[in-house]
């Protein structure tokens, strides 16, 4: 099995004037995993991913994508990666079929365009001009164009922004299917549920560096965090934080036996709770950057 990391980033820096967009970021993505990068706007997610894609040069640090420095990208390397950019409204006058068939020509061993159009659920729209597609259809076309060359590594920058819940679900199925085929996927997202559902591992980025990295279920010590036990007693709601909720529940069970403990609940922090805790303070070094929204806004989007 291939053990070279799909993406290896060490001490990456990228500054725009005084603004440190990326400020000492480290990242390792293993082959075959779905890796999500979470973080508020302005945290450096897009800058980082565009450095990995070969669009931007870095100021400092080490970067290897499929073993190659993206600043020395050649055609061969570009044929091994797939890119789905944040937003796209280009090629509006071509049909879905024309565009997928055309882009397939660029690659040495493309997927079958008709099967691919079918796989992303656009068969009914194959003869439709791109300008007439809905946002979700357009995005699925973008993914089709990103994977038509059978990339070993697929980059997705905020792929489901603006999707309705159903479209997101089917989009997630598509990505999980690609992962099962062996495609490594690196995605950025605003959505915590998206990261939780899709990602094998999640990195939280803030102020241009990784502040937490783990499986979604374990992020920020979620699994081992103190639990909150809540129940009703004497007509009021009682709550107690404890590292040993099992013992407390046992004690409550004995106290109320043989009745049920009224309103019993054992609560652990959600991914959203730990995320908000991590990005909770106003980001430093970005005063005057109007694109930075508060973490709360971010989380409720």
């Amino acid at each position, binding site marked *: 099995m291939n053990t070279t990391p799909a993406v290896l980033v060490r001490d990456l820096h990228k500054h*725009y004037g005084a603004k440190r967009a990326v400020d000492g970021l480290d990242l390792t993505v293993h082959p075959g995993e779905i890796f999500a990068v979470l973080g508020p706007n302005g945290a450096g997610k897009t*800058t980082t991913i*565009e450095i990995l*894609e*070969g*669009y*931007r040069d870095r100021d400092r640090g080490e970067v290897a994508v499929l073993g190659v420095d993206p600043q020395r990208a050649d*055609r*061969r390397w*570009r*044929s*091994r*990666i797939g*890119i789905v*950019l944040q*937003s*796209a*409204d*280009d*090629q*509006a*006058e*071509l049909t879905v079929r*024309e565009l997928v068939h*055309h*882009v397939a*020509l*660029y*690659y*040495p*061993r493309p*997927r*079958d365009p008709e*099967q*691919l159009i*079918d*796989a*992303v*659920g656009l068969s009914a729209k194959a003869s439709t001009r791109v300008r007439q597609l809905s946002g979700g259809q357009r995005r699925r076309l973008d993914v089709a*164009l990103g*994977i038509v*060359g*059978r990339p*070993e590594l697929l980059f997705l920058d905020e792929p489901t922004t603006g999707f309705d819940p159903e479209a997101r679900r*089917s*989009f997630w*199925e*598509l990505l999980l*299917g*690609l992962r*099962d*085929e*062996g*495609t490594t996927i690196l995605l950025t997202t605003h959505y915590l549920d998206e990261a939780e559902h899709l990602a094998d591992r999640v990195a939280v980025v803030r102020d241009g560096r990784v502040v937490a990295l783990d499986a979604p279920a374990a992020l920020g010590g979620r699994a081992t965090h103190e639990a909150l036990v809540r129940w009703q007693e004497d007509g009021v709601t009682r709550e107690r934080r404890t590292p040993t909720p099992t013992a407390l529940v046992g004690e409550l069970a004995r106290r109320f036996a043989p009745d049920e403990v009224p309103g019993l609940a054992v609560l652990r922090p959600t991914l959203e709770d730990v995320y908000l805790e991590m990005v909770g303070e106003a980001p430093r070094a970005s005063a005057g950057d109007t694109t930075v929204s508060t973490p709360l806004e971010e989380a409720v989007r």
Partner: protein
Amino acid sequence: MSTVTSAVPSPVPAPHHDRLPPTLRLAVARAGIELKQFFRERDAVVFIFAYPIIMMAIFATVFDTEVQSDGTVAVPFAQYFLPGILATGIMLTSFQTMAIDLAVQRDTGALKRLRGTPLPVTAFFLGKVGQVLVNTGVQVALLLALAFIAYDVPVPDAAGWLTFAWVLVLGTATGTVCGVAFSSVPRTGRSASAVVTPVVLVLQFISGVFFAFFALPSWMQTVASLFPLKWMAQGMRSVFLPDAAKALEPAGSWELGTTAAILGAWLIAGLLVGTRTFRWRRRDDG
């Protein structure tokens, strides 16, 4: 959607030895797809492709009985108008198409998308050149057919066709590279045609397309002499006008050597500026 795993053919282990598609084949494919997109944009077809033909039909019909004359030499209107509108057509299909298309493609993210694929840069630009050559060739052929058949413009001799060919090729090349360079001027794709069209229109008025060049004020002639359109029009006049009509030119001759020199200078300047300023991404995109 949940059937994606079975519907997408599963990948075979990574083969690094697969041959990348040849650049020339991709250039032909790019030219095809660019032409397809061009002819689906109604305003591009009307204002770039059909415009010179429409203008030729209108002006040659309205001024059917008129002549362009300074009192000594007289040339039928249609015969004098053809060279200017040919030169205009070349400028539109090369310079204006390139400048607007690239500005729009940069703004919509089409260039950025292409940059992220293994499409060679050479194939991209050869595709653009192919698009310009097809557009120019078809447009020129239609204009000539209209002039010869409907407006009785005399067909040039062999020496005339030779001049025609090099003015056409050099003018198209110059217009194309200057279009690449100028495409960085419009700030957005939406403003591209509003920025490019006035430049092209002013040049048409001062370069002897709509008015006889000899009838323009001399300062206007001087300004026009700095730009390629005047020289393309003059080169084309040497092809389609009787030799005696060179008396109508300010210099009293066709100045073909100067035409080649000015067009060549713009070609080199356009190449230098274009290769240094070309961007795959928008200016506000880092």
